[in-house]
């Protein structure tokens, strides 16, 4: 078990810098998820921690050891690959024990550890099979088994569930979490799927274009995004953003979206929004619902009359797309009733739970989380 520290970590491929001076501290036993769109540098960071990519600048510390220049085998890590990377010519048993064999572990101990890992992951009946004789989920488990037999300091997962179907993915998510609770080691997990990040992480690291945008607990990222990127990336469906200008109406600070749509500035941001500042007003679909179908919430509320443009029935709730100033805005109807396209409904918006982001920088007007 170990802490991990990334200090001013830089990665360049030729003249192109893909990772710009990253800093991060990971606690011992923590489950950290790196999330971000393709090309954001999350996999590169993971591969640098693994030792599969060289470090162009800065340091990587595992425990108190600087491992930046060490080869993978000297870092005491294990990794689960996206395509599982099981050795096709070896049986499950040999796949699981290969790392131990390379390390010169005595035969009896290899057998014992492989047996234990197989027991934990339910692989005992499959030990003599070759990878090609396994289903996707079984291969995934073998890949995890290969990681745990060596009892490393750190587990690295590189989008391990992206090759599985939706149902199996949900099941494996739970299994990985269970495994983490059982072994308790530090885990770094890379995914582009924000649902995976939200459901599994102790803390999430949101990355974009080689920078860390925000680090925090899933609920904190959801409730207090630091910028519009995190606001729209975390949460499904994403947060609505409407462009407007800060002004005042009857002495009350407001965001004027259009001539006939003026919304009060959230209570805690009254002192922070400056006159004529261009801002993006952000709110999640679940705080903007048709009257009578909303969640109860504190603070002020305003009622808006909006026309439904698109309907998605999900069962327990219905997603409604309405048009505000010509742009689509998502709204969630709880305990849904039947509605039709082009219906005009009154929506209630919990304004004090809205967010304001500076339109130029995209940064929140609240203190960064």
């Amino acid at each position, binding site marked *: 078990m170990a802490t991990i520290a990334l200090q001013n970590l830089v990665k360049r491929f030729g003249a192109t810098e893909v990772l710009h001076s990253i800093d991060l501290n990971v606690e011992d036993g923590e489950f950290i998820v790196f999330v971000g769109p393709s090309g954001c540098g999350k996999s590169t960071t993971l591969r640098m921690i*693994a030792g599969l990519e060289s470090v162009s600048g800065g340091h990587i510390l595992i425990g108190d050891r600087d491992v930046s220049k060490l*080869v*993978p085998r000297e870092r005491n890590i294990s990794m689960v690959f996206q395509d599982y990377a099981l050795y096709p010519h070896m049986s499950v048993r040999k796949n699981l024990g290969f790392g131990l064999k*390379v390390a010169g572990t005595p035969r009896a101990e290899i057998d014992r550890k492989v047996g234990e890992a197989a027991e934990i992951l339910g692989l005992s009946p499959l030990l003599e099979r070759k990878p090609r004789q396994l289903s996707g989920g079984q291969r995934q488990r073998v890949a995890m088994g290969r990681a745990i037999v*060596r009892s490393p300091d750190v587990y690295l997962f590189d989008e391990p569930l992206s090759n599985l179907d939706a149902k199996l993915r949900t099941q494996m998510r739970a299994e990985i979490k269970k495994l983490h609770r059982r072994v308790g080691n530090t885990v770094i997990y890379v995914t582009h799927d924000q649902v995976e990040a939200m459901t599994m992480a102790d803390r999430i690291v949101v990355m974009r274009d080689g920078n860390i945008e925000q680090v925090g607990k899933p609920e904190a990222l959801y409730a207090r995004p630091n910028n519009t990127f995190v606001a729209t990336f975390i949460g499904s469906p994403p947060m609505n953003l409407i462009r407007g200008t800060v002004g005042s109406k009857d002495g009350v600070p407001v965001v004027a979206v259009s001539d006939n749509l003026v919304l009060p500035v959230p209570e805690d941001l009254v002192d922070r929004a400056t006159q004529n500042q261009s801002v993006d007003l952000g709110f999640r679909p679940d705080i903007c619902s048709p009257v009578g179908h909303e969640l109860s919430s504190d603070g002020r509320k305003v009622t808006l009359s909006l026309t439904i443009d698109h309907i998605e029935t999900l069962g327990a709730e219905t997603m409604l797309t309405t048009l505000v100033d010509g742009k689509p805005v998502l709204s969630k109807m709880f305990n849904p009733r039947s509605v039709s396209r082009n219906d005009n409904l009154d929506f209630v918006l919990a304004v004090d739970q809205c967010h304001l982001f500076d339109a130029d920088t995209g940064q929140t007007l609240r203190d960064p989380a």
Partner: protein
Amino acid sequence: MNEIYRPPLWPFLVIGFVSLIWIIPLFGIVAISLRPESETLQGWWRIDEFTLTFDAWRKVWINYPLWDAFVNSVLIAGLSALGSVLLAPMGGYCYQFLNFPGRRLTFLLLVNAFVIPNQVLIIPLFTLWREVGLIDNIFSVIIPFVALSMAWAVFLVKNYLTDFPRSLIEAAQIDGCGHIRTFFSVVLPNALTPMAAVGILQFMWTWNSLLLPMLFLRENIPLPVLLTKIKGTYEPNWDQVAVATIITTIVPLAVFLYFQKYFAAGASNQSGQKG
């Protein structure tokens, strides 16, 4: 059967005709080896007079060192193939998976060695082998055979490894392997197809080669060189030449038939991805 799915006839006719061109001489050789030379000299295709005799099959073993030549051929072709099969994957691995200075340039030079004809090497090699006393030693031909094969063999293996999942190499590194262990434990067991291809091609080419063995070997000659000696100046010895030819041909044929499944095996790797 539906009209659309009926294959056209003409490819069969063309292929059949071309096959005949190759098969008829083979029949001829077998026929020559089984009848007295006097009958053959009137034309091997004549069947008005046919005497079955195994005389030539007996005589050629007595008159010529056919067995020694056979052993030499097996040694030369076998060791050359083994050398190429062992070395080419190492080269392929290095050029595919390692980063080292001069990688592109050396690979280009190596592959371009393919265009060097054997003839160019004869004089320098001959003087070299004479200096080091390797004339009439089978290694005087094995060494250049293996060296010359590297051009195409490394290229062939490297091309195969282009599709080799890099994650397997990385998994091996994570599991604690250095490059040598990765190569022997992970890459080699999954690269049997190109190794078989290199082995078969190299075996057949070296088995059939004439020029270098004829120049560098005196006593330890392989079968193709012996073939040239059976046909004497004053006696054609057609029947014995035919027997030696059959023996020379049969081995590469058997090797090819046995190993051809590796050619068909395809280059797919099953590391665990969904197919």
